[in-house]
């Protein structure tokens, strides 16, 4: 049985145990080796893909080093987001304050790179030494004539979710600052897709085929000027709701823009997203084109998916991801491959998310909030998982135990969204589950001996 810290016992739920109860949305237990990052990480992942903005990390060097060019968020044009800029605060800066250094850094970098806007991430130290980041941003904005936006992402001021919110607040300051001229009534913003491996290009093309204009991608392949006129779109489509719901709600309040929660992952969710969008516009012609698109795409991918399914069906999967909403899609996508999810967890899910997961999952499935390596390793063994889905930090846990692994995080370079993405996903699942290397790992050797 898996060891669980006493203070974490209520963050693990096994379906079947009634009544349903799970603790979540709380600070990680001290010393528990949480897989979570921090507020800064939340802000940084959300804003990272905006390719024509300058991203300056204000603080000592670590935060900038560890986030330099680590994500697979592609840009069709400028690549400024792939560079790492830091004020690299030194001991004397910590004593005397880092405001002057920040201002000088902003000026020189804006002069060198001509960004359309700049985001300034205030990390732990900036907050503690009391630098007036807002004032410096305002000053730099006036001096250089571009928006310079503070992102209050001090690592200790909450969890990753608070970082999402800080990012949304910065984005919200941009929206509405450019003319919405030329935007048609059948238009959307794509919120919460980060264009990993070019996924947003695929999604965007679907909408264009349906006759829907995409105004702003927030933030995958994002551009400052698109974001500035995002208030002109008729509808916000919100994926990764954990990170973007705050922005969607703020936009609804300020500009009246309605929103839909969608997911582009897996055939069912992808089709659902397109149909929901088509239905919103109440235009029979859009609906007809959508049906045609969905049928065409499904016909294209199903034969391949079926091929992979024959090999992987019946295998058991575990999921541990950042946001719970992604887990819903994964459970459904695995079901399409006739695979069973026996473990599912997230870093930042809410009670509603976990409740929904519980409804979606089979009896006995472990549902866990803010887990750690020891727990995850225990669950993998207890549930005899064949395939684990997670990010970089989860990968070595699976591999060490001879369990297949599929990367579903921001670092990945493989497109998994959209209809074509489902084929890639099936191929990746297949290539890990069916690899002959497991014959040498002891877990499988034992299985084969039975």
């Amino acid at each position, binding site marked *: 049985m898996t*060891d669980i*810290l006493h203070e974490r016992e209520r963050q693990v739920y096994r379906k079947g145990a009634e009544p349903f109860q799970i603790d979540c949305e709380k*600070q*990680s*237990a*001290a*010393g*528990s*080796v949480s*897989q979570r*990052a*921090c*507020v*800064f*990480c939340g802000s940084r992942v959300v804003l990272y893909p905006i390719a024509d903005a300058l991203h300056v990390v204000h603080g*000592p*060097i*670590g935060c900038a*080093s*560890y986030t330099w*060019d680590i994500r697979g968020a592609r840009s069709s044009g*400028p*690549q*400024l987001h*792939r*560079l790492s*800029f*830091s*004020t*690299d605060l030194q*001991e004397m*800066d*910590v004593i005397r304050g880092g405001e002057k*250094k920040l201002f*000088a*850094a902003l000026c*020189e*970098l804006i002069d*060198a*790179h*001509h960004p359309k806007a700049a985001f300034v991430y205030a990390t*732990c*130290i900036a907050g*503690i030494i009391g630098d007036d980041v807002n004032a410096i941003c305002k000053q730099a904005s006036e001096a250089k004539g571009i928006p310079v936006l503070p992102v209050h992402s001090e*690592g*200790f*001021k*909450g969890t990753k979710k608070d970082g999402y919110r800080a990012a949304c607040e910065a984005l919200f300051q941009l929206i509405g600052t450019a003319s919405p001229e030329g935007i048609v009534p059948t238009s959307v913003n794509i919120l919460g897709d980060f264009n990993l491996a070019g996924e947003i290009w695929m999604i965007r093309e679907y909408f264009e085929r349906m006759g829907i204009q995409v105004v702003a991608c927030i933030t995958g392949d994002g551009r400052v000027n698109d974001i500035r006129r995002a208030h002109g779109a008729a509808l916000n489509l919100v994926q990764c709701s954990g990170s973007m719901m705050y922005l969607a709600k703020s936009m609804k309040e300020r500009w009246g823009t309605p929103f839909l929660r969608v997911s582009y992952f897996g055939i069912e969710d992808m089709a659902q997203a397109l149909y929901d969008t088509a239905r919103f516009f109440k235009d029979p012609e859009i609906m007809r084109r959508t049906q045609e698109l969905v049928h065409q795409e499904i016909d294209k991918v199903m034969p391949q998916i079926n091929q992979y399914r024959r090999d992987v069906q019946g295998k058991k999967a575990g999921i541990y991801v950042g946001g719970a909403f992604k887990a819903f899609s994964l459970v459904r996508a695995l079901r399409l491959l006739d695979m069973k999810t026996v473990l599912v967890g997230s870093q930042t899910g809410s009670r509603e998310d976990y409740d929904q997961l519980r409804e979606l999952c089979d009896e006995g499935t472990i549902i866990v909030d803010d887990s750690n*390596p*020891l727990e995850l390793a*225990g669950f993998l*063994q207890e549930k005899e998982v064949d395939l684990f889905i997670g990010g970089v*930090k989860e*990968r*070595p846990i699976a591999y*060490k*135990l*001879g369990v297949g692994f599929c990367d579903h995080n921001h670092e990945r370079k493989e497109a998994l969204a959209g209809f074509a993405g489902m084929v890639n996903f099936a191929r990746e699942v297949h290539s890990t589950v069916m690899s002959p290397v497991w014959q*040498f790992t*002891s877990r499988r050797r034992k299985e084969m001996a039975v």
Partner: protein
Amino acid sequence: MSADTSALTNMTASLNILQKPAAPPSYVSTRNACKLCAPLGASLVFRGIEGAVPFLHGSQGCATYMRRYIISHFREPMDIAASGFSESSAIFGGGENLRRGLQNVSVQYKPSMIGIATTCLCETIGEDVAAMVREYQEAQIDLPTPQLVHVSTPSYIGTHVDGFHAAVRSVVATLATPEPEPSHHVNLFPGMVSTADIRYLKEIAEDFELSSIVLPDYSETLDGPALDAYERIPAGGTPIQGIRSAAGARASIEFGRSIRQRDTAAAFLESTFGVRAHRLGLPIGINETDRFFSTLKDIADRPVPRQHEMERGRLIDSYVDGHKYVFGKRAIVYGEEDLVVGLAALLAEIGIIPVLCASGGKSGALRQAITEIAPSSPGVTEVCDDTDFMSIGEKAKLLKPDLLIGNSKGYGIARDLGIPLVRVGFPIHDRIGGQRILHLGYRGTQQLFDRIVNALLEHKQQTAEVGYSYL
């Protein structure tokens, strides 16, 4: 073309107009850092001690970011616990978080040691971690408490390398027994080298019939076999008992020319317990490796074992075989200062000009160290410490090197220039087996030499008009 490269091109163009190869402008900001922060180095050290768990006192994110960075290089689990500061801990102090964190780690991991490194956050608010650790140990007097070692690693001072050396020193200073039994072993402090390097160093010591304590030793904890049960703390690492006996050792050997004047573990053992400290450069290249072997020969009082003489001989033979392929080539070397010094030593003895030796470190000793080991370098060598990758890239455009030698993070520069990158050091995030790259000794130099020559040959072959398969 990206916004960034077009800006660079514009800049280069305007420099050409000026008709003088002026240095690119210097920046206040750090652009694509060529360094990491201090607690990362300390975490690596703690991971290399038997039964130890690294623990960061500060925000949760620091531990997670460092874990991800280290995991992507070693491709192994790397658990780093954190006390996980909240807003109130930042205001009222993180003592309670530290206490609960240490307790939780003790319960979950059952460690024999917890290595506590500080983050910039707890350093800035002025936490007296040493006192907290003392109090914790006193309060738990009736319970089995793991050994606690604390090291101060604020990321606004120095780099991951400084954190690494500081942690080695703290471990030794905390654990070494004041009244040591004389022991025949040698303390070996290799610095931040690869798992393959550590295994090879242990093998060399064994061949000299010297018992050795290598600190840290993550050769198994960060490069272990496939398992059927998850190890809370992976097997391997420097035995704590061995570290306790460090004060009675026959001698210490410590690598790193940039740290020779610093208060390191070897310096501490020498000044406190009179353990003779041999402070050498990283043994890369024949000259530096000869110095290492000659030191071992003196300590062990026996000749260099035949198999190592043979490896040395084969290495010289290969230098001769390959010398024309490399002579006069221009290389940029970057990374940790001591690795850069070692690589410059190797390049100088095979006729490659290290046109730029660059590091994000700023020990202040880099220039001097390079002058010492490569006094007769045939070309002009520019030495840049406290620099970053964008500065290196800007200089590279002017210097027109034939190859780059360093970690994965220089790949973008190599790609822009269309020249090969020979991957060494940490991190290797874009290849498999980065942790198994051997750099040290005759054998490591052999592998580096072969890879350097072959990278140049491959580049020549790929860019040649005629695709000869016979070179």
